[in-house]
């Protein structure tokens, strides 16, 4: 099977192609990024093609780790090192791949079918996958300590954060979204003091209807989290050993450490500079094809039919479809109902947001120990739900009635 695919590769006559048929003369599949998207794809694809060479390029050290666990490792007593499931050397062995670590990609030479690495080295590709993720959005802040504001979006960030934590007691988290709420819960559970600041009227307001957001807020408050909602931080100044966070209503908060969790922006710069179509993310179709031939995008950097969903489940679905596509069997991505679980043990939440622009209303019911909100269309069909506390147990049952996110 893999022989057939290599011959298909040999038929291409782009400038980067080689016409000889020996194993090493066909350019490799190149994956940029060794996060969950890159490694999951590599694993799935290797299962279908054990012959074609694979090159992975990453700006970090290539450790494989479970990123969703960064926001709940503290209370579980896990060190950053313990979150590493395999280092780059072991991943390279497992995947029969070459993994270039600490290597930035300068540019994509689309007509030449080559990737230009930092330092000018050019690498040909048979197919190229961009799994370059998303980066924390930096809130506009004034003050002499803005560069001291941390964000955690990688294991390396997290290791730095954990090191700083050993010397601090009081944190301010900017951004009461999913990640900010998870970190707040993890920190208070492990004994730190946390105040969460943000313009949102209730936590995770982009995903949760008010009743569910308020329930989450109460749960976290009971666990010790303080809130300054409907307020924006305007500056972060040095103050003694720590920092002073100025809010737009005049209040000042003292903090030993400021963590920013205001959101992520897909990393589109590399794709955009190469002339690929980008919108919020790198624009791809159901086959995860970008606007350029044999270039694909997967995970947090990708916008699939208008949907940029920076969660694990969509990434897994994408990797499972893209692997056969790359191996010669074009396979469209299908998104089933994909509830997002918010890892806040003080008040667990599961949410399947209704499709953008869907017409309907939230029906909210309080139950013993929780709240259930269902988003119903005019004809009574279930289009989304948000569950908090004990109601989370209803997730599996409600999921069965939901339409797929992308059929």
């Amino acid at each position, binding site marked *: 099977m893999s022989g057939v695919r290599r011959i298909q590769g040999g038929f291409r006559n782009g400038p980067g192609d080689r016409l000889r048929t020996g194993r090493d003369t066909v350019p490799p599949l190149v994956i940029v990024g060794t996060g969950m998207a890159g490694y999951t794809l590599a694993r799935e694809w290797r299962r279908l093609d054990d012959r074609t060479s694979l090159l992975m390029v990453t700006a970090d050290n290539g450790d494989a780790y*479970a990123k969703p666990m960064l926001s*709940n490792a503290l209370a579980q007593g896990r060190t950053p090192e313990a979150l590493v499931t395999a280092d780059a050397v072991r991943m390279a062995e497992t995947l029969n791949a070459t993994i270039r670590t600490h290597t930035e990609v300068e540019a994509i030479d689309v007509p030449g079918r080559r990737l230009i690495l930092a330092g000018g080295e050019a690498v040909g590709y048979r197919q190229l996958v961009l799994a370059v993720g998303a980066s924390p959005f930096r809130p506009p802040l004034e003050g002499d300590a803005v560069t001291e504001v941390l964000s955690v979006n990688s294991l390396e960030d997290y290791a730095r954060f954990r090191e700083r934590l050993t010397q601090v007691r009081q944190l301010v988290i900017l951004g009461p979204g999913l990640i900010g709420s998870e970190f707040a819960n993890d920190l208070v559970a492990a004994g730190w003091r946390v105040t969460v600041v943000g313009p949102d009227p209730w936590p995770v307001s982009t995903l949760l209807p008010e009743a569910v957001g308020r329930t989450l807020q109460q749960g976290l408050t009971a666990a010790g989290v303080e809130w300054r909602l409907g307020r924006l931080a305007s500056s972060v100044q040095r103050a003694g050993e720590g920092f002073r966070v100025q809010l737009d209503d005049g209040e000042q908060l003292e903090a030993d450490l400021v963590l920013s969790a205001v959101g992520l922006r897909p990393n589109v710069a590399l794709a955009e500079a190469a002339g690929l179509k980008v919108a919020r993310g790198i624009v791809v179709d159901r086959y995860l094809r970008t606007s350029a031939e044999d270039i694909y995008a997967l995970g947090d950097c990708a916008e699939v039919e208008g949907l940029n969903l920076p969660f*694990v489940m969509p990434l897994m679905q994408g990797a499972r479809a893209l692997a056969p596509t790359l191996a010669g069997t074009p396979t469209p991505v299908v998104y089933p109902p994909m509830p997002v*679980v918010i890892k806040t043990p003080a008040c667990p939440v599961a949410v399947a947001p209704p499709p953008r622009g869907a017409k309907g209303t939230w029906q909210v019911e309080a139950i013993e120990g929780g709240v259930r909100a269902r988003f119903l269309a005019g004809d009574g069909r279930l289009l989304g739900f948000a569950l908090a506390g004990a109601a989370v147990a209803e997730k599996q049952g409600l999921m069965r009635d939901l339409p797929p996110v992308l059929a």
Partner: protein
Amino acid sequence: MAKWQCTVCGFIYDEEKGLPDEGIPAGTRWEDVPEDWKCPECGASKADFEMVLVTA
């Protein structure tokens, strides 16, 4: 009865409780969970992402 944690997302499978909603009765041991089972929270498959033993 043991608990197993998904190394991808942190989901905990509790053998004692099983996942009755998914047709896995309470008391099902991890080794008896079907090979095509996927983590209900992140979609990681049983084969790809070993669950780690949390408590025995």
